[in-house]
Every structure is written in structure tokens, then in C-alpha cells.
């Protein structure tokens, strides 16, 4: 490692550390998964232990967009807009099978995976995922945030490129 890089690396690490322990989430709760989201946030599982216990209902202030529950085609533009309104750096967690792939609602009304609309960082499958899965997903997100760094680009989105077709 070059000497000039030393400071940058340290800074990256410090900022990554701060970001991963201060996750203000925007819960975009639509459906069944919301119940497990609640369970995760409440006393038994307590997501606040990871520093993610402060949901912000303004996308401007949120760091992580938790998309919780099925997204229908009617809802898709709203989701996209919320994502656009968020301030950088931002991450997206797809919570539950419906947001990951559309689940068993393979029909005219639902979006087959939100990664067709917005990039997704962490997928938490399950219908709905148990709180333990959610905590696991959150820890994976923390690792990802730590690796992101202050200047570095986001690690490549694990999704198909969003192609806007009207």
C-alpha cells in the first residue's frame, strides 16, 4: 500500500465504521413482511442493537431503503421516486421473496422483483423471512457498507440494470 493511500484507507474505514453502525432506515412497508419487520424491530429481536433502530420516515434522512412486502405495478413508480429522493450514500434491502423475485404472485399485478426497478444491495428471502434472517441480512449489509468507503464506488449492483420502459 502506498503511503498516500494510508490516510485514505483509514478514513474509508472510519467512515465505513460510522455508517454501518448508524443505519437510519426508511421502511417501505406494504404487505405481510411488515409484520415480521415489526417483530424484528421490537423487543424480542431488537434491531436497535445494531444501531438501526431509528426509522426515518423522510427519504432524505434515510440511509437504507427497506422494501418490505410485495410491490405491485401501481406501487412501482412510488418506490422508484422514494429511491430517487434519498440522499447518497444509500442502500436498498429487498425484504421477503416478493421483493426479491415476485414470489408466487406471478400475475398481472405484481412486479417480479424490485431489482427490475431499483438496484438492490441485500436480498433477504423468506415469505416472510424470520427475524433471524433479517438480522443476518442486516449484518451482511453492514459488511457491505464497511467495504463501500467514503470515496469508493459502490460495489457493483447485484441486479439487472434498470431499464425504464414506459
Amino acid at each position, binding site marked *: 500500500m502506498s503511503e498516500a493511500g494510508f490516510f485514505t484507507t483509514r478514513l474509508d474505514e472510519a467512515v465505513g465504521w460510522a455508517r454501518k453502525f448508524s443505519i437510519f432506515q426508511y421502511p417501505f412497508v406494504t404487505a405481510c413482511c411488515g409484520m415480521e419487520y415489526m417483530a424484528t424491530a421490537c*423487543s424480542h429481536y*431488537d434491531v*436497535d*442493537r445494531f444501531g438501526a433502530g431509528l426509522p426515518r420516515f423522510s427519504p432524505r434522512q434515510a440511509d437504507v431503503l427497506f422494501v418490505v412486502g410485495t410491490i405491485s405495478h401501481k406501487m412501482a413508480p412510488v418506490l422508484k421516486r422514494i429511491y430517487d429522493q434519498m*440522499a447518497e450514500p444509500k442502500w436498498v434491502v429487498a425484504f421477503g421473496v416478493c421483493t426479491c423475485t415476485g414470489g408466487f404472485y406471478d400475475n398481472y399485478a405484481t412486479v417480479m422483483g424490485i431489482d427490475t426497478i431499483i438496484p438492490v444491495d441485500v436480498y433477504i428471502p423468506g415469505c416472510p423471512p424470520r427475524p433471524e434472517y433479517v438480522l443476518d441480512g442486516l449484518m451482511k449489509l453492514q459488511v457491505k457498507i464497511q467495504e463501500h468507503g467514503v470515496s469508493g464506488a459502490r460495489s457493483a449492483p447485484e441486479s439487472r440494470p434498470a431499464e425504464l420502459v414506459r
Partner: protein
Amino acid sequence: MTDVMTEVAIKLAVVFVMFFGVMNLAGLHTWIERKQSAIIQDRIGANRASIFGFRLMGLLHPLADAVKMFTKEDLVPAGADKVLHTLAPAFSVFFALVAFAGIPFGDRLVLGDRIIELQPAKIDIALLYIFAMLSLGVYGVILAGFASRNNYAMLGGLRATAQMISYEIALGIAIIGIVMVYGTTDLQEIVRGQGGNYWGWIPRWGIVVQPVAFFVFLTAALAETKRIPFDLPEGESEIIGYFVEYSGMKFGMFFLTDFLETILVACLATTLFFGGWQVPYLISDGFHFPWGAVLPVSQWTYVLLGVTSFSIKVLVFCFLFMQIRWTLPRFRYDQLMNLGWLGLFPISVANMLVTAVVLQLTGGRP
């Protein structure tokens, strides 16, 4: 010349102590609040952030929050007034901070022939000054609401305006009782006036003389800090709040203001009603207990005890506010107005009149 320099240095030191204490307490406040709510709610609360493996019971989480907010993108919504949008949070924090200048946090310290007042700024009208600053702080909220070009923020701003105006009146009139009793608006003098005991054992604190004023003050002051049950301008679940369009550190500044104001109100309540830095039975040369025992203490110990006593009282008040925050639901707009104008305002006026009459009858001594 050197005299002036020393004077300035001492003043700076005092200001620094106050500033340092307040800012740290504000940081700590978030941590206490998180932990305290966790205890109320059968949770553990934030505890994962660690440096070199030290978790310190989650004490590092506020630090993480602060660093993160500094590195977050700052957004100004299209159509918003850029200047005002930026000014608003600065306004808020600035006025909340400068208000602390009037708070005495200890008795005077005598170093040789130099007398150091443990109060950042010695102002004769400290009480009025603090109120003025509190009122100006509202402009931050109003500006934030109006500059954001967002209906929710606008509603928040409107609510804040109405709430502040109505409660400041009750707050002011409640305090007049205290001012009449102690005959001054200088906070240091008010605190000094609270030294000594009634009948030898009840401390001569404001709450003993003005119990009604205390409860009016506490309620109105709670409203002033915009916390539950008076958090209408924020109202998370109804209107997201006047800061809905703020991101990054600008939002952080509003966040900070919230805590600063809580601490300020706790300081005021302590100063006005709980004897400020007074310790029961302690006068400048030592403890004089009601049963006649005397425990002499040195001057330094005396001052330090005063500062400690002040801090503990402030913390107790902060804790009380948190306890209320996690227990009660929120008022509605009209109920808030009713409580302010039909409840607190008449009570405080009546309290003022009764105080005046009693003072007249007793010849001006409490």
C-alpha cells in the same frame, strides 16, 4: 493589558467548560435516551458499535451517528429557497447554544483577589435573555418549514409557530412569580436567593415558594422543547415534521437542537426551582445540618459540589423528560391550544396575582 488577557482567558475557560459540558451532554443524551427507552421497552438497545473491540455499552453509537451525518449528501429540494433552507438549521442550533450563556452552573470561585463567576456571561437580565433566545430559536423551525416547499414541512412550521407563541406566554407569566419573589432577573442572584432554609430544614428553593409556577413552567417548557406529548411540529406519524426535506448534517443540527433545548429547559428548571447549584445545608464554609452539626469544606470543594449538584439536577430533569416521552401519547392541535390558553395561561396569571398579594402582605420577603 495582561489583566485583560487573563480576564479573557478566564472567560473563555468558563465558556469552554459550559460549551464542552453541554455538547457532550447532548451527545450523551441520545445514548441515554436510547438506553433508557430500551429499558422501558424490554430491549437491550444499541450496543454493537465497537472500536478495537470495546463496545462501551453502545456509547459509540452517537459518535457513529455524527460521523455518518457529516458524510451524508446534502440535498436542497428543487424549488426551495436555498439560502433560507441552509440558514434554518444554523439558526436553530445557534440560538439554542447562545442561550446557555446566561446559565450559572456554579457559585463564584475566588482565586486570590480574582472573583470568577461560573456563568459564561454575567447578564443582569439573564432570564429575559434566555427567553429571547428561545423565542428566536423558533425562527429556525419556521424557516425550515417555509423554505422547504413541502406541505408537510409547512404544516410543521405553522404548528411550531402557534405552539411556541401560546406556550411562551404561559411560560413567561409563570416565571414572573419567581422574579417577584427573588426581586431580580439575574439568574445568579435568583440562585443565591434560594440558599438557606425555611424553619431550619426545608431548602429555600423555588419549588417550595412557587409550586404552581413550577408545574406550569414544566409543562410549558416541555412544549417549548417540542417533545412528546408536545411534538406536534414533528409528529412523526402524522406529518413527518418541519425537517422533512433536510438530509445529512442539516438534519443532524435539528436533531442536536432538540437535545440542546431539552438540556436548556432542564437547566432553567433547575436554576429557577431547584436551587441551581445550591446544595441543601451547604453554605460557603461548609454543611450546616438542621440538627446542629457542622461539616466544614474548603472553597474548591464547595464550588465543585455546587457544579456537581447542578449537573445532577439537570440530568434528573433530562431523565424525567425522557420518561414522559416514552410514556405519553401526543396532543392534538386544538387540545394543545386549549391546554395552553385555557389551562396554563389562567393558572399562571392567577399564580402571579396570588404571589403579588402574598408578597404585599408579608412585606416583600418570601
